[in-house]
Structures are given as structure tokens and as C-alpha cells.
């Protein structure tokens, strides 16, 4: 047990010392995950809302596919994107493999079904009278849609948070598409795997603590946002 406590003590020193490599790793994680989540939000939320409004069998099939893709293994996504971006792949000429862009693409594929799928659920569960009520009070089409979005805000925010949680904590995509290059594509999860293998237990714990802290902060902000309207 001693080595665990020693690792925790050392990890706190690493965090307090603001080690340069440590900060760079955290920065890459935040940057890539925020970008991929933002992209998945911009495309996934409107797509989810659009699908939720449809009643066709095609829409139901798409929802089933989205729900299935929510639990897509990260290494499968990594392998799939790798096959496209590798030198022999159809997009090999673009030279994106082992770049942050490749990580963003992979994480986007992970986040999109979650954000779109959960947006479908949150919008489908909303009261059908929202837009009619807004219009009965004098709203035009855009204003009634804004009110609809506002009413869906908690569900959509929860969807975005779930998407962010998924990509921030994943390791398969980042490892396979980023290549774990120090200072460039090494993020928290790939660094944790590497440092633990090297026996640098404290560094791994320090990164793990950051991971947990970010998750905690995101959840606290969400709770505060909800509380504010009560």
C-alpha cells in the first residue's frame, strides 16, 4: 500500500509544481476534447432535433443506429479512422495520421452519436405545446424555435456533457490516431497508460486527478446552471 500513498503524495507535488510536460499533456487533452465536442455539438444537436421531429420509419432506423453507435468501442473507431488516414488509406495523402486533427476526427465520431442520440431523447420528451404556446403569445417561427431550444436546454446540455465525458476519458482513439507524441498528441489518458507502464506511478496519478477534477467541475457547473432557474 505504501507505494500507492507515496504515488499520491508525489502526484500532488507534480500538480503543485506545474511541471511543463504535465501542463502540455493537460492542455492537449482539453484542446482536442473541447474541439471534438464543439464540432459534435454543432452538428449533433440540430441533427438530433431534426430526427426527433420526424415520424418516418427511416428516422426510427437512424435513432436505432445512433443508440447502437453510442457504445462504439474506441479502438474500433481508432482502427476505422486509422485505415482511412494511414499512408495506404484513401485519405493518406492528407498526412493527418498522428496529428491533433486526427484525434479530433476520431473523438468527433465517438461524441456525435452520443450528443445526437441524447438530443433526440431530450427533444422527444418535451411538451408538444411549447411552440404553439409561444406562437399564441406572438412569437414568429424563429422565436418559437428559440423558446423550444430554451426548454430543451437541460437535456441538450446533459447530452453535450456526456459527449465531452466520453471523449475526455477515452484512450483508444487518442493512442491509435495521435500516436502519443510528447508535447503534441500526448493527452492525459495516453500519458497515464505510458507513465504507468514505465513505472512513473505518481505522474499517472497526477493526470488521473486532473481528469477527475475536470469531470467534477463540469458537473458542478451543470448543477449550478440547473439550480439557477429553480
Amino acid at each position, binding site marked *: 500500500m505504501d507505494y500507492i500513498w507515496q504515488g499520491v503524495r508525489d502526484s500532488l507535488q507534480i500538480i503543485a509544481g506545474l511541471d511543463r510536460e504535465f501542463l502540455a499533456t493537460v492542455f492537449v487533452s482539453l484542446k482536442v476534447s473541447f474541439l471534438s465536442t464543439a464540432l459534435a455539438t454543432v452538428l449533433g444537436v440540430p441533427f438530433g432535433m431534426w430526427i426527433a421531429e420526424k415520424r418516418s420509419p427511416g428516422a426510427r432506423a437512424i435513432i436505432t443506429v445512433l443508440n447502437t453507435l453510442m457504445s462504439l468501442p474506441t479502438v474500433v473507431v481508432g482502427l476505422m479512422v486509422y485505415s482511412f488516414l494511414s499512408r495506404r488509406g484513401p485519405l493518406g495523402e492528407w498526412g493527418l495520421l498522428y496529428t491533433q486533427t486526427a484525434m479530433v476526427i476520431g473523438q468527433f465520431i465517438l461524441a456525435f452519436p452520443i450528443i445526437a442520440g441524447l438530443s433526440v431523447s431530450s427533444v422527444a420528451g418535451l411538451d408538444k*405545446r411549447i411552440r404553439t*404556446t409561444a406562437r*399564441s*403569445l*406572438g412569437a*414568429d417561427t424563429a422565436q418559437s424555435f428559440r423558446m423550444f431550444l430554451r426548454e430543451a436546454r437541460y437535456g441538450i446540455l446533459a447530452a453535450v456533457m456526456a459527449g465531452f465525458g466520453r471523449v475526455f476519458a477515452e484512450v483508444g482513439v487518442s493512442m491509435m490516431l495521435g500516436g502519443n507524441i510528447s508535447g503534441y498528441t500526448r493527452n492525459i489518458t495516453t500519458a497515464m497508460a505510458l507513465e504507468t507502464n514505465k513505472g512513473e506511478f505518481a505522474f499517472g496519478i497526477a493526470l488521473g486527478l486532473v481528469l477527475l477534477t475536470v469531470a467534477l467541475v463540469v458537473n458542478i457547473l451543470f448543477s449550478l446552471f440547473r439550480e439557477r432557474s429553480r
Partner: protein
Amino acid sequence: MTAYRLDRVEGRWGNFVLRATELHLQRGKIYAVTGPNGCGKTSLLQVLSLLDRPAGGRVTCGGERVDYDDGSAWLRQRRRIAYLMQQPYLFNMHVYDNIAYGLRLRHVPPAETRRRVREVIERLALEPFARRNAHTLSGGEAQRVALARTLVLDPDIMLLDEFTAGVDQRYVEMVEAYVRELNATRGTTVVFTTHSSSQAQRMSDHPITIVDGEVRACDEATRR
């Protein structure tokens, strides 16, 4: 002066057809729409609210023919009407913001919005829950808030679909008095539906009935 004129208007909702061959509603009057469940009272209000486009016929509102294809003119006409729907929905926000919503859409200045919202809150005795989220209210409280949200707009025309449904008896009188006051002092045209013949008689001298989907005004004032 005319509030509404419906000529050979026909509205369709599934198998149900509502017809108003010739209906003429005058400004500043209170009209009570009565009839059994499913006769088309709510459908008539939906046509009058201009939210539902009839399948045929001509609707004139405030002397102006309603052009459903002219977005800005249609919106301008709709904003002269306040419509309290049956089983209204309150937005997931504070009671105050729910009431202020329609005023903000109409770009009423903030000071004026505050004054009018406070006034209606006081008139309908909503102070005890004015700062609460609307989704925490009981059915009767929610109905009064929805009514306040409609009355605060000070519209030319007010359409009230069973506006006292679920409201405690002690508040019904208060609400009715406020509606009558707006009609008397502001000249607001009121069209309301009710299942209560006593409420129809108390509030209005101008009954409208719907028989087999045909809208009929029952006095000379409303029949052209």
C-alpha cells in the same frame, strides 16, 4: 366596427369539419362560445387566433383580410390578439418571466414591462408564487399565471379557451371581473369558450353556438 368577419370559412382537423358561413363579430363585445365536448369550440378559437389556416373561405380581422402567406402582416395581426389555450403550457422559467414573455416579444420597454407585469400579478393575486419556477405550481395556480400572461398583453382581441377551468371558485370572480374591466375600459373584444351556462350569461350578451360543426351567432348583433 368589426373585430372579425368569417365568410364561408371551413376548417378541417382530421375528420372534423368546422364551418362558419357568415360570422361577424363586433369590436368591444364579449362573446361566449358554448356547446358540448368536441363540438368545435377550441377549433373556432384556433381559427380566430389566426394560428390555424382554414381550408377555405375568407377571414377578416380588424377590417383587414388575413393573408397567411404574408409573414410580417400575419405576425402583426396575430400580435393584436392574445390567445389563452385550453390546458396552457407554462415555460420552464420563473412566473414573472412567463408573464413578461409576450411583452418582450413585442419590444415593450423594460420599465413598462415591469409595471404591467407587477400590475397583473397584483390583480390576479399571484404574489405568493411570482418568484417561483412555473413548473412547480399547482394546476389552478398555473391556469391563473397563463391567464395573467394573456391579459398583460392588453390586446385588441382576447381569446380565452375555458379560462377559469381548474381555478378555485374564490378566484373565478376576480378573474371574470378583470376580463370585464379590460373590455369596458380598453374596448377589448373578448371571445371565450365555456361549459358553464351561468358563466356565459354572467359574462356575455352575445352567445355563439356550434351545431353539427356549423358556427352560429345567436343574436342580431353577431349575425350579419
